[in-house]
């Protein structure tokens, strides 16, 4: 008779015999996170630049985008893509929904980071560029964005951490991601304890190094008197 302790040794053994599923869930989560991060960086860069333009039209577009994606729960956005778009005839794979859904959602947050980064650059940089004859686009491309990247690296990394954790919403549409794999293993085997602990550990394994890097890098920037972009933590 096996022990009924939820963390009994035999439960761990059983879990590792079924590691394949959890392992491929982990891999899936990793893939979704990397691609969604890439998408969110591209979208965020565009939104951030639009939101600091002199003309009000791009500024409004960026504003509307950010407000919509930040003020509707990610879960609803994912459901919308899964069910809503499917009803309209556009059926996307769970993988695509993960990348696009999480990517667009975090694109709004990255956009705010980029915006704060652009605005944190000293006025003198814009003035020097203008006094040489650089136009707005050239000023952004050669002067502002390259030096901004360094100062927004910490908040961007925090975004990456949030993004990785948020890929777990895929579980809800059977996305075959880490959370889903752990959850389905747990409910079929009743090995809830080890399954969730392992899943948590694997998320931690992805996120902790990033969070640590972010913190260390920010300390380093502060020590060098570089510009530090502080984003109020409004997520989750």
């Amino acid at each position: 008779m096996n022990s009924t302790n939820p963390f009994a040794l035999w439960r761990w053994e059983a879990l590792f015999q079924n590691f394949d599923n959890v392992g491929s869930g982990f891999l899936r989560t990793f893939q979704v996170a990397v691609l969604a991060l890439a998408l969110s960086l591209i979208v965020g860069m565009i939104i951030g630049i639009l939101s600091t333009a002199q003309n009000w039209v791009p500024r409004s577009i960026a504003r509307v985008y950010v407000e919509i994606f930040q003020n509707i729960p990610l879960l609803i956005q994912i459901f919308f893509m899964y069910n809503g778009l499917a009803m309209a005839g556009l059926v996307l794979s769970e993988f695509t929904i993960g990348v696009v859904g999480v990517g667009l959602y975090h694109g709004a947050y990255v956009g705010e980071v980029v915006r704060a980064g652009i605005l944190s650059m000293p006025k003198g940089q814009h003035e020097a560029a203008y006094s040489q004859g650089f136009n707005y686009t050239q000023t952004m491309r050669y002067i502002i964005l390259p030096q901004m990247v360094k100062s927004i690296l910490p908040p961007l990394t925090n975004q990456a951490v949030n993004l990785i954790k948020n890929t777990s919403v895929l579980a809800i549409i059977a996305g075959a991601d880490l959370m889903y794999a752990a959850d389905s293993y747990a409910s079929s085997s009743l090995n809830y304890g080890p399954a969730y602990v392992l899943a948590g550990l694997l998320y931690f394994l992805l996120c902790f190094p990033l969070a640590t890097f972010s913190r260390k890098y920010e300390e380093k920037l502060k020590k060098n008197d570089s510009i530090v972009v502080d984003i109020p933590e409004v997520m989750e």
Partner: protein
Amino acid sequence: MIKLQNVNKYFGDHHVLKDINLEVAEGEKIVIIGPSGSGKSTTVRCMNFLEEPTSGEVFIEGNQLTAKNKLEVVRNSSAMVFQQFNLYPHMTVLENLTIGPIKLQKKSKKEAEETAYRYLDIVGLREKAMVYPSTLSGGQQQRVAIARSLCSEKKIILFDEPTSALDPETVQEVLDVMIQLSSMNITMVVVTHEMGFAKQVADRVIFMDEGTILEVGSPEHFFENPTHERTKEFLSKILR
């Protein structure tokens, strides 16, 4: 070369420049002095439209500056040196000097670098070409900024208090570079309180007070017999 005609500037309802009229000839060296808040910076910033006048006209080499053509005129005609240097911190000294000529004047990298080294020699910083600005002293940074303003070989260089942010020991090295420039055929408009510099290079000194040009004259005029009471008062303070 530069002409300001009835230039007025308001910030909100603060009347900062009041009917400024000024003509600067090609190659002329102008020094602008005056108390804090009198409108010196605003005046030079109107010359490249970093500030656009509320009314009045600005002409550069005969072309009227407008919101539409300002970038093109600036690109072709003028450079600026700032109190806070405003070097690009993510670029080496050499890149700071060549980015403008390469991207704006469409010079080749090689040509731009040769020019850059030539001007680095003039400001005495050739050996700093590969370092980043943050490793330099204030005086060195300002000399790099001056070299940058020279690299695009414009006819006009505007200086807004180039030595005011410097440690007293490094002021002279920057002034020496500027004195050297004055022998080139560059039109210089310099906001500064360095009267020694004014005496040595200025063709005309302009005294501004409360948004107007109160008095114009040679440096000697200002040292020997300034007309206005306000001018005397101001000079007695800075020459003390």
